[in-house]
């Protein structure tokens, strides 16, 4: 069965893929939306992957862009569906270092950063896309989106709790899932995992990222 007539294909694959390739792979609707947004904000970087549209914006312009996405008639994203973070630590990163795949190992120098993804969904038009920004992972700060979407309140608290990103102007930036007196931000990749002590001659089980098994 070809991919075109499979009803299980995602929306992006179902619509005509007008630009195929590794970088941009969008349905007609999302491509039109991208053109509209890029016309309004020419500095946006565009990424398409698996039929999803991602717009990469500078951290200082994110709130303005979100407000535009909410208020503009064509975009009209009423819902902030998701707000999440990913930590990419700095230093020399060895990629694809798997013994068994035979892929080459290569090292890359990079700055530590935390990516913040805002997933916007339009109930009226039925589309969804992602706005991404990144901030340095050393004492990260970002303006709050709570004035645009009230839903950002809890989700920004979660990002603060897990990644330590301080959202300037947030009404009540406290921890939300970890205890109030917790040290550190557990979803950062530099957060120590800790091993488990075993009641047998002082043995310990090493933390998951140091295990050989």
């Amino acid at each position, binding site marked *: 069965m070809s*991919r075109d007539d*499979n*009803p*299980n*294909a*995602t*929306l992006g*694959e179902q619509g005509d893929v007008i630009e195929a390739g590794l970088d941009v792979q969008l349905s007609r609707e999302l491509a039109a939306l991208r053109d509209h947004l890029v016309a309004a904000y020419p500095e946006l970087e565009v990424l398409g*992957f*698996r039929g*999803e549209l*991602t717009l990469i914006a500078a951290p200082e312009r994110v709130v303005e862009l979100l407000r535009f996405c909410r208020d503009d008639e064509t975009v009209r994203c*009423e*819902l*902030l*569906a*998701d707000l*999440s*973070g*990913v*930590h990419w630590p700095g230093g020399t990163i060895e*990629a*694809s270092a*798997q013994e*068994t*795949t035979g892929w080459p190992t290569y090292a890359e120098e990079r700055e530590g950063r935390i990516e913040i*993804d805002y*997933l916007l*969904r339009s*109930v009226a038009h*039925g589309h*969804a896309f*992602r706005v991404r920004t990144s901030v340095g992972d050393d004492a990260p700060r970002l303006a709050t989106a709570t004035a645009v*979407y*009230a*839903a950002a*309140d*809890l*989700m920004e608290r*979660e990002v603060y709790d897990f990644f330590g990103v301080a959202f300037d102007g947030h009404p*009540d930036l*406290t*921890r*939300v*899932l*970890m*205890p*109030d*007196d917790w040290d550190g931000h*557990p*979803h950062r990749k530099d957060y120590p*995992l800790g091993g488990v002590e075993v009641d047998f001659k002082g043995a310990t089980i090493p933390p*998951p*990222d140091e295990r050989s098994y």
Partner: protein
Amino acid sequence: MSDLQRPPASGAAWADESDRDRAPARPREHTVVGGDWQELPNVVDDDLMIINMGPQHPSTHGVLRLVLTLDGERILDTRPVIGYLHTGIEKNLEYRPWVQGVTFVTRMDYLAPLHNELAYCLAVEKLLGITGDIPERASALRVLLTEFNRVASHFVWLATGGMELGSTTAMIFGFRERETILDLFEEVSGLRMNHAFIRPGGIAMDLPDGFVPRARTAISALRDRIGEIEDLLTENPIWIERLTGVGLLTAAQCLDWGVTGPVLRSAGVAHDLRKVTPYCGIEQYDFHVPTTDTADAYGRYLIRMEEMRQSLTICEQVLDSLPEGAVMVADAKIAWPAQLALGPDGIGNAQEHIDRIMGKSMEALIHHFKLVTEGFTVPEGQVYAAIESPRGELGYHVTSSGTNKPYRVKVRDPSFLHIGVLPTMSHGLQVADIIVAVASVDPVMGGVDR
């Protein structure tokens, strides 16, 4: 806590006006380490009272703590405190192969385990780029199981919500009918809850013999039972009195706070991801999305009852048009190598498969071993896959760095966002009504705290 705010050692001394002036107008920070109740009498305004509801209150749906600011019986402010059930599932996923993630995510929203599994698997499949290769039978069975799960989850909502209002009949009915569905799940997957049955690439194993007629019997029995419950509650004056006009949330408020699911639909917005971004071929089944314009707890009750009927209709259509074929993707680099079967001691590897890898084919053994211990690698990238869970948009924001383990999995759980709207929803209500308001959004703390 600064020394200024600490109450003096002698008990009666906090009536001292000068102490009171120095205290902040409203306490905004409460720690969970205990003892902070001592400072509360020192900072309340005249008649305002701060009451801690939960985390062990029987009618707060698990371990939800609400710090209520009360003027008499009227609620002026609600501060939800969550995290009591936080188990770091998202972090745990980062150190396990992709397939093992299913076993974790199924434990988040424990009333909709199959929805969690499905959303996670859809995200992994999207990253792998095999969304279009999932066999039709697997997709149909995924729809069947998740729609049955929706009915089961709504029954628990009815049971717990009814119990919180003192209607023990609703509780007994709800839990009893749910058993019918859990029996079906047990028959299919071996487990009543936390099935880990939907896997990346398909589902773990095919239906057992004779399942289809038994499922049909269950559907017709459930239809009768739903009718019975409706006879009991829909026109019941106490039920109407307690639910009508309570927990009001307009469509604009819902959208602003990211509230989806039955709560948004009770405000008249027919937003359902099964219609907006259909998954697993659910668009080929005929069903409608019920809405009301009352925007209150009673509307949400009506919607959930109708959703149960609609889900049963979908299940029936799936059983009518169940395609034949495999239930796991053909790509042997992804598909789970073992062929599961029911043995004398439960579900396990099929004897045939064990004979083959242990006695006949060394290559098959190596393949099995590598895929089971190491798993498959997933291309770099980030995707978001969302489905309509019984509570609203359940989304998985999954990032891969190109290895055999997820780099980051962020779960967008509807209950988590619904907790955020409780202050808005309960402002001005009586204390007894906040129970109804919380019950009407149906938060599941396993999903909230993750």
